[in-house]
């Protein structure tokens, strides 16, 4: 049959080359930094140096201080994000699917979204005090907003042709939802999750910097105030690495779930 094209899975360009170039870029940056520091061009108090940071990393790790703070931040982040997913997903799906629920929830979320999330933190402290749950609430709010906005958009973006298809085959409402609306919204949903993770990481650190007695944000604030720049960098790099790793993991999930789509890199 002349119209049978041979399907050819679209291959991604080789990852290895991309990774190599990225590694070279980072390495060159680190080497240049070290050279500038060794040459004494800038005071080590202001700039520190990669070798000093590695040394500080060793000290903080050996004393168990870094792990302790990472665990504190990690728990606040994980609990807040988990709540944002567990509560945010069903609520967003409802708001996208049911018109009246959408009308009810949309103004509340819009108002919350317009406010700078960090500006809510002083209020949260007044309600909950300084400790664990105030951070969790801030993380929850920032994650929830990202998930809500992406998921409701995904549910509403359902292709009208697919709805027509479902009507033509007399699909029930649950069938329409589970077989057409929800799978169609999955790419949006995963994007929302990825945005949420990014926001939650940032907000845990910001909250800890503003008011806390432990956590990576606390480390940054404490060592910053005492001019221990290498230690600040250790904390900062831990946050960046965590964020990048989580983002990459979610990208892999997206890639796996979206294997029905042609990929363009």
């Amino acid at each position: 049959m002349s119209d049978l094209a041979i399907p050819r899975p679209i291959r991604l360009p080789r990852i290895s080359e991309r990774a190599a170039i990225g590694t070279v870029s980072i390495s060159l940056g680190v080497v240049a930094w070290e050279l500038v520091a060794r040459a004494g061009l800038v005071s080590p108090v202001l700039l520190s140096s990669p070798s000093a940071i590695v040394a500080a990393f060793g000290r903080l790790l050996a004393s168990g201080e870094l792990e302790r703070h990472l665990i504190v931040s990690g728990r606040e982040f994980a609990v807040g994000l988990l709540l944002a997913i567990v509560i945010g997903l069903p609520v967003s799906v409802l708001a996208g699917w049911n018109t009246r629920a959408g009308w009810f929830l949309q103004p509340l979320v819009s108002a919350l979204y317009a406010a700078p999330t960090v500006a809510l933190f002083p209020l949260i402290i007044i309600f909950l005090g300084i400790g664990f749950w105030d951070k969790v609430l801030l993380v929850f709010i920032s994650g929830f907003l990202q998930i809500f906005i992406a998921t409701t958009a995904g549910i509403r973006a359902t292709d009208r042709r697919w709805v027509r298809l479902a009507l033509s085959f007399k699909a029930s409402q649950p069938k329409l939802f589970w077989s057409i609306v929800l799978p169609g919204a999955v790419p949006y949903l995963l994007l929302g999750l990825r945005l949420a993770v990014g926001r939650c990481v940032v907000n845990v650190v910001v909250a800890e910097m503003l008011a806390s007695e432990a956590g990576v944000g606390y480390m940054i604030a404490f060592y910053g105030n005492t001019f221990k720049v290498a230690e600040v960098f250790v904390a900062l790099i831990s946050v960046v690495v965590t964020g990048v790793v989580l983002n990459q993991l979610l990208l892999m999930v997206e890639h796996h779930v979206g294997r029905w789509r042609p990929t363009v890199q």
Partner: protein
Amino acid sequence: MAKKKLELKDLSFEYASLAALDGVSFDVEEGEFVSIVGPSGCGKSTMLSVIDGLIPATRGKIVVDGKEVRGPGHDRALVFQEPSLLPWRTVLANITFGLECQKATRKEAAEKAHSLIRLVGLDGFADAYPYQLSGGMQQRVNLARALAVDPEVLLMDEPFAALDAQTREVMQAELLGIWRRTDKTVLFVTHQIDEAVYLADRVIVFTGRPGRVQDIVVPRLSRPRDLSVKHSRDFLSCVERIWSLIQADGKKLPEHGGRAA
């Protein structure tokens, strides 16, 4: 005389008080292949949506197997103009969609889908995703999905309009083969006169907006037909006749005439 499978009685449809269909009446017999041609914008596709039950008629009746129908039903299946495949489902899972809506078991649905994959010539593509298929192959899946629910009447809405000329011809010939093997009653809407004539037992010619039945033309072509029929004198004169009907109608309505396909 063969049994009447589908009867339209004075079917009218108005959209925003603009008449799209005006008193359309005709019958389709069991196992018959009927084509509908008319100038674009004459309401042919709208009529299929009305018959399928996706939009309610303003006036008139639709009767399938002697029973009046309202709303969508398992007795009719629509082959969409755009394939409208679910991109996250494989070919197999797209074909089983209608069966799932009828609460068929997973095993039944898969068995049925596999036999339809063979029927429409997609062997080996059961696990392919729609983006991996050509336009013609996507329309084969679209057709198989409609056939899977075993409808009494198959409604086809310009399914080959977006295909290139060669693929379209191949698909026309294959559709006739599939129709012969399945014995379905088919109502096929197209704006291509030669396609209508090649496929159909009867060609219903529509007027421009609002759509009305202008005439019914019976091609004098024996079956089975292969594509060489398209060069025969009977075929060409039939096409010519329909063409002049549509043109004559276009002259009566100058404001729509320019759009005659």
